């Protein structure tokens, strides 16, 4: 294989970041976290405990020693996310800060507000809708070409696991030879919560690579995402290199990993409900409702952690300054006081805010892009795979995990 001399692999090339990351997000017990959380929400809203321990996922080594509180009630979750003066994103300096750097995620206002607007410009609905034709369609059609003659496929292993990442490589216009190591380093970053040393190593190597891309492209006038962000300007202010590189470091995880998981769960929801699948297939105007319902029903991100900056009282619980507050946004989306029969996937619901993209100042900056990607992906699957349905030879798909939830497989058949 041709190896690039522009990007450095891990010192130990046998380190497998993919397996390490998967182990950090899956629940050891395999129990449905939503059943447990629903039962607890009937008692009260705020609990002093670590949700990871409660739900059987490994502890986050970077959060050791912090008092921890889990917030389940919808009104309290909303309050946490809309009151950043009390509930700060600087909690992320401990993990994301180490591996991504000074990305938007670790910042509070006023710094956050300023940089957020510069980045948001590149992800406005009018901008990302153009990428549907130029970036997204070629990727999804190309991938489906690879298996459409077979009559069966695992849509996770053959489609959703690849498409958002390939879209990012195109956005960044990465040289083909750099991609394999690039992806490995990017996944390595997210191992920080269970393997700090490899996370930091990945961060340094990816940072050096992005600095190289920035140098090459800063004044080139290109239209790729690196060039666009390097030239973004509001009232004469540009993004500092460190902030820009940190954003790019975060992209694989924030944009790729989430979209892969959300699309997989969308397919699981639709294919497991053939009447709804048929309705959407026949009337594509229903796609937006299907996407919003999937993000409500199985949001990949189920928890938004924040740090208390001063003592606060929430649901009559006294919380000290310096505590980890876990706003359980996934549980918000299953609150029976907001959604009738919340565990059911039902695209016919009346539109009502969900927290699949969170809420408040840090609400997902890429939500408009994610919707374009998922819309194009679903349309392409319907167009190329007639009579798409679950494969009866396999167990139906099951969305699992504590945070970063996903079905391990979505086995389908179709008329080849």
């Amino acid at each position: 294989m041709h190896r690039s001399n522009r990007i450095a692999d891990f010192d130990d090339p046998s380190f497998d970041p993919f397996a390490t990351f998967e182990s950090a997000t899956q629940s050891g017990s395999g129990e449905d976290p939503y059943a447990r959380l629903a039962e607890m929400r009937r008692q009260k809203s705020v609990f002093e405990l670590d949700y990871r321990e409660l739900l059987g996922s490994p502890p986050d080594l970077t959060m050791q020693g912090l008092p921890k509180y889990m917030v389940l009630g919808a009104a309290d979750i909303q309050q946490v996310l809309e009151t950043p003066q009390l509930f700060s994103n600087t909690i992320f300096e401990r993990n994301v800060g180490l591996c991504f750097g000074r990305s938007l995620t670790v910042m509070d206002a006023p710094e956050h507000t300023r940089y957020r607007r510069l980045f948001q410009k590149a992800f406005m609905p009018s901008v990302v809708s153009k990428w549907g034709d130029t970036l997204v369609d070629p990727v999804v059609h190309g991938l489906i070409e690879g298996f459409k003659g077979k009559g069966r496929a695992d849509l996770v292993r053959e489609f959703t696991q690849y498409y958002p990442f390939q879209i990012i490589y195109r956005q960044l216009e990465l040289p083909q030879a750099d991609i394999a190591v690039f992806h490995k380093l990017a996944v390595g970053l997210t191992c920080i919560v269970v393997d700090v040393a490899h996370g930091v190593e990945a961060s340094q190597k990816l940072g050096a690579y992005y600095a190289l891309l920035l140098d090459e492209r800063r004044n080139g006038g290109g239209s790729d995402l690196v060039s666009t962000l390097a030239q973004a300007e509001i009232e004469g202010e540009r993004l500092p290199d460190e902030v820009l590189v940190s954003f790019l470091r975060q992209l694989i995880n924030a944009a790729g990993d989430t979209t892969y998981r959300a699309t997989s769960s969308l397919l699981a929801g639709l294919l497991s409900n053939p009447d709804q699948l048929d309705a959407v297939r026949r009337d594509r105007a229903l796609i937006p409702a299907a996407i919003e319902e999937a993000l409500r029903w199985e949001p990949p991100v189920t928890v938004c952690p924040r740090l208390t900056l001063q003592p606060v009282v929430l649901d009559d619980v006294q919380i000290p300054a310096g505590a980890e507050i876990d706003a359980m946004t996934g549980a918000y989306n299953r609150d029976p006081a907001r959604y009738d029969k919340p565990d059911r996937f039902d695209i016919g619901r009346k539109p009502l805010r969900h927290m699949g993209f969170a809420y408040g100042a840090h609400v997902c900056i890429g939500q408009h892009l994610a919707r374009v990607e998922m819309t194009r992906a679903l349309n392409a699957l319907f167009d190329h795979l007639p009579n798409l349905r679950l494969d009866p030879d396999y167990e139906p798909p099951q969305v699992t995990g504590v945070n970063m939830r996903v079905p391990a497989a979505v086995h389908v058949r179709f008329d080849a």
Partner: protein
Amino acid sequence: MKTWQCLSCGFIYDEALGLPQEGIAPGTRWEDVPTDWKCPDCGTGKADFEMVEL
């Protein structure tokens, strides 16, 4: 009828559609949206919205 976009998150307020979920009727002009109204996605105030062509 015009559309207004939040500079912080890209949320779009469409005068023709209003925001019935939040008690703002279809057809409500931007200037008639309450001054203390905040972006329902990110909480940004009205001043940081910009008119956009769709």
